[in-house]
């Protein structure tokens, strides 16, 4: 699949933003005074920037509001509603906390909605049977793990952050390996795609078009696989090991910010791989 910058920004930033806001909602972050205001601003900023980036992926962004309509059947629509509900609830929570009022029930509801939003984002991809690598419960699990980990790192919980970074690294590694196995085991082949299997071995002879098309650009993207192993190693180092290293030095706000920046950059790289490595069954017609 084409690794669109808008979707990488969307999933990385909104995931981290909702992860951070979920932590705040549960009362685990500093939610009062200037520090609280700063963390709320960061959480809402990340979530809203991510959501704004997602509209850049639309062909007709001016019609984005229509995406709220089909929540009964569409995960994309559910994601839109959940994001709106989470942001609304957490805005109320932030206002109450910054006014020094108790707001834990509102916060818990907001945290749940934020995590459901991240899960719904992942389900947009996990629902697609056409992409065997994504079509698995591990896709929402990995998205949630990244959101929670980013939330822990951003709120500066040093030891929980270190533990979660290592755990997410392991989960990501397992997800890559099981994803490879799923992609390799896909029952969809050139033979089943053309129905010519009973006759013999099928080899592409002539593509339908000499240039590129929307289909080949969007769904027959192959560049990512050439350096996949190197990029996975780099992603593991950047997203998890480097932030752990930074967090192990005596705690300081600069160290936390640096660790969070490294983790988000690494997460963006894992998301690039998430799209670039994903094989759509349509490719069977072309290669």
């Amino acid at each position, binding site marked *: 699949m084409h690794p669109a910058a808008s979707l990488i920004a969307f999933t990385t930033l909104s995931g981290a933003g909702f992860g951070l806001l979920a932590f705040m909602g549960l009362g685990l972050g500093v939610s009062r005074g200037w520090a609280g205001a700063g963390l709320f601003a960061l959480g809402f900023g990340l979530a809203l920037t991510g959501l704004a980036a997602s509209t850049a992926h639309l062909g007709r962004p001016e019609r984005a509001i229509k995406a709220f309509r089909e929540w009964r059947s569409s995960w994309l629509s559910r994601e839109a509603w959940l994001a709106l509900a989470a942001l609304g609830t957490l805005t109320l929570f932030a206002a109450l906390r910054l006014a020094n009022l108790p707001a834990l029930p509102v916060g818990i509801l907001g945290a749940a909605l934020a995590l459901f939003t991240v899960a719904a984002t992942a389900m947009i991809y996990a629902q697609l049977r056409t992409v065997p690598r994504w079509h698995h419960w591990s896709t929402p699990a990995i998205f949630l793990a990244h959101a929670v980990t980013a939330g822990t790192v951003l709120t500066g919980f040093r030891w929980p952050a270190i533990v979660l970074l290592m755990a997410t690294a392991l989960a990501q590694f397992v997800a890559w390996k099981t994803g490879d196995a799923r992609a390799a085991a896909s029952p969809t082949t050139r033979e089943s795609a053309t129905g010519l299997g009973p006759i013999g071995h099928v080899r*592409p002879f002539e593509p*339908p078009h000499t240039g590129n098309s929307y289909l080949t650009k969007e769904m027959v993207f192959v560049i990512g696989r050439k350096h996949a192993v190197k990029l996975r190693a780099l992603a593991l180092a950047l997203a998890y090991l480097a932030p752990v290293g930074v967090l192990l030095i005596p705690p300081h706000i600069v160290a936390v910010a640096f660790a969070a920046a490294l983790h988000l950059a690494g997460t963006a790289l894992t998301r690039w791989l998430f799209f670039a490595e994903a094989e759509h069954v349509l490719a069977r017609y072309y290669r």
Partner: protein
Amino acid sequence: MTDLPQATGKRLGLVIDLDTCVGCHACVIACKAWNTEEGQSPLADMDAHGAHPSGAFLNRVHSYEVTPHDGTAPRIVHVPKSCLHCTDAPCVTVCPTGASWKRAEDGIVLVNEAECIGCGLCAWACPYGAREQDPAQKVMKKCTLCVDRIDNPALPEIDRIPACVRTCPTGARHFGDLGDPDSAVSRLVAERGGMALMPEQDTGPVNRYLPPRDKETELDILAPLLTPVTEGPKGFLGWLDRALEKLG
């Protein structure tokens, strides 16, 4: 409403004969022409006369080399591919706006372009690559089975079929109701062992493909009955031929 209809009255679709398709791409051109020249929203091309032309098509013809398992000579098979109007169309249920829908009366999968936000999720959900985003209008386009032909009483009856079927010079494309077991297309599918593409994707495609015949065993029984086109020149050319023969 992006829910799928429980059941559709008819199941309109195409039956494509891979035995007679010669890969001429006339169906591709007829499709592009009808939808661009006659349709409400043209299928755009970008950089059409430049170095990197690209554009939206609703029908594309792939060609494959098939090598039999017994090692005999490979053969070329052309596979035209357009929307298969699936019974369980995943492109419909993923749509967030309701722009994508399946018509209850005949099962045709359509896009309401005015409601489409161009998110492309339907194209991702389709295993066949039947949906493309128009590069100029930025909305999703797909085969409509030429609803503006088949529903159009202003056209002569012979033209009330999809443009690709009407134009196919080898008669490799057939259009009809695959939900009716007695329809011409259903009988054709039963006779020739019509197959579905990617059945393991569980989309319930309506369109069927007729497999290529085995050239070794299935001879054309009508061939000996065909009269030869020419048995030698007649008239002036015949005289010229004979005269030149005499010259040695």
